[in-house]
């Protein structure tokens, strides 16, 4: 079995975002990480390989110079065998469908039949790329998965739907799974594995190598007018001893905020 993972190197959750004065762009300060949901995808791929054998390969779109150290430290060091980095100037401003097209071609070229993705990246919050990849490849897909098992060419997955409802679904490979928190507990990289990861193969592909033209990934979605979320009016600190503040809080919730 050949198992793929799609991962995105993105701003960490403690990053601060600052829109430019004209709203045309924004900057972030903070470190970059492999998306936290992608880490559940990595762990599931490695566990599946440990159980059933096979090869694992991580796919990403981005500049090799920006993503390679994170992929080695957070993905290859956890047991994934190889990285495929799709890098092309035409992808710099790609929208979700452009990225999905590039990843789908790369997945196809590697002969993968099981792909794990995080349920979403934590930057654009589009939640589009995984379902688009499955659509482009004509594969089955199951999103927000909290339990997964594969047996030969069939799989079973539990998905977390709206309203706390969970469903167990089954089907045949090939399938694309997106990982929800709780699917597994991602392991930590050990020093020998980190050293070994430095020697693992990484391949860089441009669009031509994937048989795609720049037009095929031309963006159809434009984003503008970046701004900060609306400010909350400043609140009040309730002063006094514990009994007083509790009584005053209940009064304010009932009489001022009217939420009780």
């Amino acid at each position, binding site marked *: 079995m050949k198992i793929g993972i799609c991962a995105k190197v993105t701003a960490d959750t403690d990053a601060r975002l600052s829109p430019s004065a004209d709203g045309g762009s924004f900057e972030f300060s903070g470190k970059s990480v492999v998306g936290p949901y992608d880490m559940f995808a990595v762990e599931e791929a490695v566990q599946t390989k440990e159980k059933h054998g096979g090869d694992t390969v991580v796919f990403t779109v981005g500049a090799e110079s920006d993503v390679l150290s994170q992929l080695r430290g957070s993905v290859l060091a956890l047991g994934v065998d190889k990285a495929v980095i799709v890098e092309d100037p035409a992808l710099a401003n790609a929208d979700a469908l452009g990225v999905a097209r590039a990843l789908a071609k790369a997945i196809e070229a590697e002969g993968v039949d099981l792909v794990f993705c995080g349920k979403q990246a934590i930057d*654009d919050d589009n939640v589009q790329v995984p379902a688009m990849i499955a659509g482009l490849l004509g594969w089955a897909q199951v999103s927000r998965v909290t339990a997964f098992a594969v047996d030969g060419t069939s799989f079973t997955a539990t998905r977390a739907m709206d309203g706390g409802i969970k469903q167990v679904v089954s089907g045949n490979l090939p*399938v694309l799974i997106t990982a929800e928190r709780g699917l597994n507990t991602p392991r930590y990289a050990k020093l020998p594995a980190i050293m070994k990861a430095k020697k693992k193969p990484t391949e860089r592909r441009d669009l031509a190598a994937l048989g795609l033209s720049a037009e095929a990934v031309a963006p159809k979605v434009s984003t503008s007018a970046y701004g900060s979320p609306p400010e909350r009016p400043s609140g009040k600190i309730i002063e006094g001893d*514990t009994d007083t503040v509790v009584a005053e809080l209940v009064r304010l919730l009932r009489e001022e905020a009217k939420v009780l």
Partner: protein
Amino acid sequence: MSGILVLAEHDGGAFKKSATELIGKASELAAALGTQVSAAVVGDAPAASLGAAGAGKVYQVQGDHSSYDAAAMASAWKAIVDAASPDVILASASYVGKDALPRLVALLNTGMGSEVTELRAEGGAVIGRRPLYAGKLYADVQISSSPAVFSVRPNSFPQPGAGSGEAEVVTVSAGAQALTTVVETLQPTSTTADLTEAERIVSGGRALKSAENFDNVIRPLAAAVGATVGASRAAVDAGYASHSEQVGQTGKTVNPTLYIAAGISGAIQHLAGMRTSKVIVAINKDPEAPIFEHATYGIVDDLFEVCPRLTKAFEEL
């Protein structure tokens, strides 16, 4: 324009609130753009009744679609889109909207703005505004290809006034192409509302110090005020609460009327998940905790002193 198509979701034949909410918003946009509103229904549901919300025409793929599969849903929607050829498609950012809608967008080779919270007509086009980075940033999104597809965060727009009239129903046929089978549906075990839909939430953080304290302090407080229990990432990572209870950028994004945060410092990633709560109460010993900058009401005190008294006060209401 050949109109705005609303993908109307239903639950066993009962239309979801999002279906009429989106038809209402689509009617407002259509009036500004000088175009029509139609709706898409997959499965057995009273399609004509959507006329009361403002849909002129409803395209329906009939048959049993109660066993949800992303590929089958996307292909049924595709058949409707081919028949209706809309310029704009609106759908709910529900599980199905996040799962099957991007697949449809790939089949249509178009673009999509996800989870918009505002929509406006401008220059003959529809523009959406949406949160990014879990709400730390907002931006406008516009689609240059047709149809322009938007998913809308539930409860972003008011329900339309109840009208009358039946929509014309156009039956569309679509090949069943389910690639998965539903084996079992598990209903939620808890009787309280799901975090993402809860009106009231009581969340606990690292300051609870143990799972036992979390169970003895936070859960009774939540029960006393009819709230759903939430937790910070630190509390979940320490094992005080379950993964499904985590509120924040890498947990649930919540939008309650009342959010009580006990022993939560207010890391950016937690704030990102709850900042749109209407009233925020913060209980923390540390007066410098960032949560106080976002709280409607703050109490600087020991949560182990405050919470039991607050539980008692809520029980006596």
